[in-house]
């Protein structure tokens, strides 16, 4: 077996192995645990960097293993996989830093970081899965590895949230499995292939393929939080901030959205999906989700809950883009996978900072926090403007392409819907920014746990990650046209999906 085939396995192992070791470490071995965590994260980034370089130079990284005589486990680092892998590895690194600072001195850290690493392994597996079977394996592992993180605090509320989370995700997984087995029964193998594989069946299978599509999307829609399958997401807010950050930006909801991308482009094929009339209903569901999420976000006073509803709304941009027939829609949707991740993780990091440093959990308590914590608040503001789609930010690029896509697909109502959604985004983010910067701070903070020291408004490990991601939010917007931006990479992917 050559090195190229092993490389995807190494990428998985770089978080799996540290995770397993950490799980068995005693609580007191903080230094060793941190070293393991960071070594794994950096190693993963290096490996991925090497693969990114390789893919640009026409290398292919495929690993195959027969689980059953006619059932393969396939890992494939294609362009789309690398997009998601890079995103998750980079954000995992930052989130690990953040979590080390966030959980300093709290109990059960070995358990936490163990499952944290498993969670990233599962996400990377989802990203690199080369066929539907492999995808499912890691999709379910993701459910299992995130559950302990959701219930990590062990309070009654956390357990309740965990129950709801499980009911939704396991039921979704079961529906998903049914669809997958059915599709395997029809096709024999369902390998992800640009342009899709289902078209070979022909139109006499239309009804079956439509039902299977429904099953697959229903299964994935749970994690992607499509309305009405979104109920678990606001509940899961009970988890510690780094978990929420990872759940919302990288791991769980993204796995769902990424799965939908794979299903539409590389299983059904965008053109065949259009022929089967599958795109329009999905576009409608995504649009309802976008508007519904934003509307619900308006009424939340709890900061993390508002962000959660905002996630519901924003993730459906990805799905909407997928359903807009034409390259521009594809670019808008897929690039938002990255952009939403960077922006949303910034917001959650900041929310965690407010809670940890000043004890602020509610929006009504945020008055004047901008002066006490300027860096955090600047990062928050940048990300919030990105979410609204303000120029120079990553969000602008996504919305630009989505609007173009809507025009190309001749779906004028989508443009209207996008405008309405942007207004709603502004309506629920601007009041927060107003409170941050323009209202005077109270006499005394609710619970000031971390005092400002010199230039550090809070713990250094809590501050660096959101600032980095905020800079990335700006970078992805300003340098969108260069060869190093997510947009550039996504354009390459879009070319492949539409070339016959």
């Amino acid at each position, binding site marked *: 077996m050559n090195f190229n085939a092993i490389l995807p396995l190494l990428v998985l192992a770089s978080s799996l192995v540290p995770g397993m070791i950490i*799980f068995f470490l005693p609580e007191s071995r903080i230094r060793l645990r941190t070293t393991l965590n960071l070594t794994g994260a950096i190693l993963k980034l290096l490996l991925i960097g090497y693969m990114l370089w390789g893919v640009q130079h026409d290398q292919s990284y495929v690993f195959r293993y027969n*689980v059953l005589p006619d059932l393969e486990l396939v890992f494939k680092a294609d362009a789309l996989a690398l997009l998601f892998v890079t995103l998750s590895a980079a954000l995992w690194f930052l989130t690990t830093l953040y979590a080390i600072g966030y959980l300093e001195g709290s109990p059960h850290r070995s358990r936490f970081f163990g499952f944290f690493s498993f969670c990233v392994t599962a996400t990377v597996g989802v990203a690199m899965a080369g066929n539907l079977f492999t995808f499912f394996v890691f999709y379910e592992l993701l459910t299992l590895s995130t559950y302990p993180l959701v219930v990590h605090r*062990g309070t009654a509320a956390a357990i309740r949230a*965990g129950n709801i989370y499980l009911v939704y995700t*396991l039921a979704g997984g079961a529906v998903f499995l049914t669809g997958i087995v059915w599709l395997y029964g029809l096709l024999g193998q369902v390998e992800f292939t640009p342009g899709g594989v289902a078209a070979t069946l022909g139109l006499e299978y239309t009804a079956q393929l439509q039902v299977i599509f429904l099953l697959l999307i229903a299964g994935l829609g749970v994690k992607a939080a499509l309305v009405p399958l979104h109920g678990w997401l606001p509940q899961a807010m009970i988890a510690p901030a780094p978990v929420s950050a990872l759940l919302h930006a990288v791991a769980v909801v993204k796995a769902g959205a990424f799965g939908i991308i794979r299903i539409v482009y590389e299983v059904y094929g965008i053109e065949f999906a259009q022929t089967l009339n599958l795109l329009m209903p999905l576009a409608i569901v995504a649009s309802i989700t976008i508007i519904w999420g934003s509307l619900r976000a308006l009424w939340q006073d709890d900061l993390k809950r508002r962000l959660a509803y905002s996630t519901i709304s924003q993730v459906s941009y990805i799905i909407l883009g997928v359903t807009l027939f034409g390259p521009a829609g594809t670019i808008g949707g897929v690039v938002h996978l990255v952009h939403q991740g960077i922006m949303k993780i910034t917001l959650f990091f900041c929310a965690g900072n407010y809670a940890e440093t000043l004890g602020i959990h509610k929006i009504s308590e945020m008055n004047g926090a901008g002066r006490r914590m300027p860096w955090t608040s600047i990062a928050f503001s940048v990300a919030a403007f990105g979410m609204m789609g303000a120029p120079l930010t990553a969000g602008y690029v996504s919305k630009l392409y989505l609007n173009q896509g809507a025009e190309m697909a001749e779906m004028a109502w989508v443009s209207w819907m996008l405008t309405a959604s942007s207004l709603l985004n502004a309506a629920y983010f601007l009041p927060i920014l107003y409170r941050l910067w323009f209202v005077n701070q109270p006499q005394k903070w609710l619970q000031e746990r971390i005092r400002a020291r010199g230039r550090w408004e809070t713990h250094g490990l809590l501050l660096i990650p959101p600032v980095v991601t905020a800079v990335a939010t700006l970078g992805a917007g300003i340098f969108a046209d260069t060869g190093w931006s997510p947009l550039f990479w996504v354009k390459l992917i879009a070319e492949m999906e539409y070339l016959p």
Partner: protein
Amino acid sequence: MFDPVPWLILLPLVWGCLTFLTGVGRGGRLVLAGLIIQLVLTIILARQIVMEGARHYAVGGWGAPLGVDLYVDGLTGIMLLLTHVVALPLVVYARAYFSSQAEGASYFWPLTCFLLAAMNALFMSADIFNIYVTLELLGLAAVGLVAAAGSAGSVTAAIRYLLVTLLGSGAYLMGVALLYGTYGSVSLAVLEPLLATTEISAAACLAAMLMLAGLLLKTALFPFHFWLPPAHGGAPAPVSALLSALVIKASFYLILRLWFDLFAPLVTTQAAQLLGGLGAAAILWGSILAFNQTRLKMLVAYSTVAQIGYLFLLFPLMTSAIPGAAESAMQGGVMQLVAHALAKAAMFAAAGVMVLSAGKDDIALLGGMSSHLPLTLFTFALAGITLMGLPPSGGFIAKWLLIDSAVSGGQWGWVVVMILGGLLSAAYVFKVLRQAFLPPVAGIKFKPVIRMLEWPAFLLALISLLLGFRSVEVLNLLGAA
């Protein structure tokens, strides 16, 4: 060429007698060494089966009809291998368990050895009367193990178990009598062509019904499951693990054998659907009852009732006319058998550790277990993954094959049952896991446990999980004819 077949029956009998002589509660080391030898022998045998195919063995050189014939094929190989792979870690576990808690240790070692001897003989028997003898031997040894704890509850469970198993084998023997009276032989090799070529007689049908009913009773298929939870839930943990993982599989193995070989000309699609229906009822009802338990070991025991149900889904699925569908049904059923045996042994062992540490068998007391015994809880969770049929476990591969068979055969009802069953098992597994994440109940003091209690259980759970990656080998062995 060295032939391990007779040794696999003889050796455990020798260990059993020796440990009986060494006295109460002693001989664990001998059994451990003996089991290692037996495991090596089964591996050799499995390799021989893969290379050279199925074969007969005439004990003492006397062939059928006068002597006792033994027969090994792929399925036998799988069962033997499974028995030893499960039993070996459990022996290590049992040594640690009984060193922490003497209750139930008295005749554990000899009885376990006789149990293994009976099972090995049962798997290899090629005549229906010899099968009867091994069934009785197996039942008596198992009853002895259940009673070993000596409390009123376990003695009651043991008596009930004994009566059930006697009733089951009585019915089975009646079937044997009818078959012998009609066809004049008890050898499977002789009876099979006779049944296939002659006209179906009422006596043969009655015999088939009696034998299958007796075996169903022993396998504890719904609605014959009433005896299982008290017997398996009340015994000491190593015993529960052995019984739930292996003993009920032995009678299932016989059903499989009789149904598809000897009685193949008699069985009808309706009968297969009936078995499947009972299996479905077992899955749903067993899972619901498991969820309602307040005692951890009872929960695990009811989960066995539910998991047995999956095995019986293969009968209706095998009736499918589509060749691929029938093949994957058989493979899925056998995978489920293997995966469940490994996972259930691990789960009972883990439950035993938790009960030992908490001092009382109560799910409500498990709070704080996640930090006190993380490895054991992890074991429980891994075993749970197999029971839920989630990837990458052996249980997942089994479920994949069964669902694949049901979908391609167009039998959608079973798909729904399997999906629902998976979700229900998640409900009862997570009932335990989430309790373990809660803070400890006030005033509870967990006893420390020795490491050798935790690792064997973990090993079993790990095997059940990684089995998914080695299914090709299992299915190769199954396919060896």
